[in-house]
């Protein structure tokens, strides 16, 4: 078992075109680091700044819950969870 990351079209350049990749971790930050180890470049498209935060116009969901409401990068994850990343559809 592992944690699955669903990759949006625009980030599939980092996954060789794969729609989903998997990784491990006890929280979202660790999981993203782990996945970035096998697919370098993914992380900086999801996370920014110091201390690290989720990018404002990227939405991340763990098991369908927007992580902004569940602790952001500290959101706990476990085997079998599904993490979905979706770029915001927004503009001015």
């Amino acid at each position, binding site marked *: 078992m592992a944690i699955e990351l669903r990759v*949006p*079209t*625009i980030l599939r350049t980092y996954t060789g075109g794969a729609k989903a990749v998997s990784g491990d971790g006890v929280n979202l930050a660790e999981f993203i680091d782990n996945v970035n180890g096998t697919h370098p470049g993914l992380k900086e498209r999801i996370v920014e700044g110091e201390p690290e935060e989720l990018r404002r*116009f990227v*939405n991340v*969901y763990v098991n*369908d819950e*927007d992580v*902004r409401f569940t602790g952001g990068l500290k959101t706990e994850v476990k085997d079998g969870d599904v993490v*979905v990343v*979706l*770029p*915001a*559809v*927004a*503009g*001015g």
Partner: protein
Amino acid sequence: MIEKATVDAIVAHARRDHPDEACGVVAGAEGSDRATRFVPMLNAAMSPTFYEFDSGDLLRLYKELDERDEEPVVIYHSHTATEAYPSRTDINLAQEPGAHYVLVSTRDGADSPAYDGPVEFRSYRIVDGEVTEEEVRVVGSYEETEGEH
């Protein structure tokens, strides 16, 4: 190439939500480049100068597209006081390189159903911060264009 009924639906949505920006997608079968299913979305920003799909709605939309083997062929929104050209914000935030970004303007009275002039309706590709306008060809139905190249 887009169907007349879809153009009318997008313009009607833009007028309905004026003076706020309206937004939505027109979905189509993956790889078909045919925008066949009109999906108006709520502008969670409820603003005359900004639009953003609600995050819960966004997740539901993409799951639905996935289940139906569809993609957002068109992503549309309105400008309510400026021309139908991508703003700097539109360009910075565009993250669907495969989509046609359609802009409608409801400025200068075009929001009124009584307005009988042409409504600005334009389409662009936005890839890596680069905007390319494309011609919009309005057809009665995609079927009638079959066999054309």
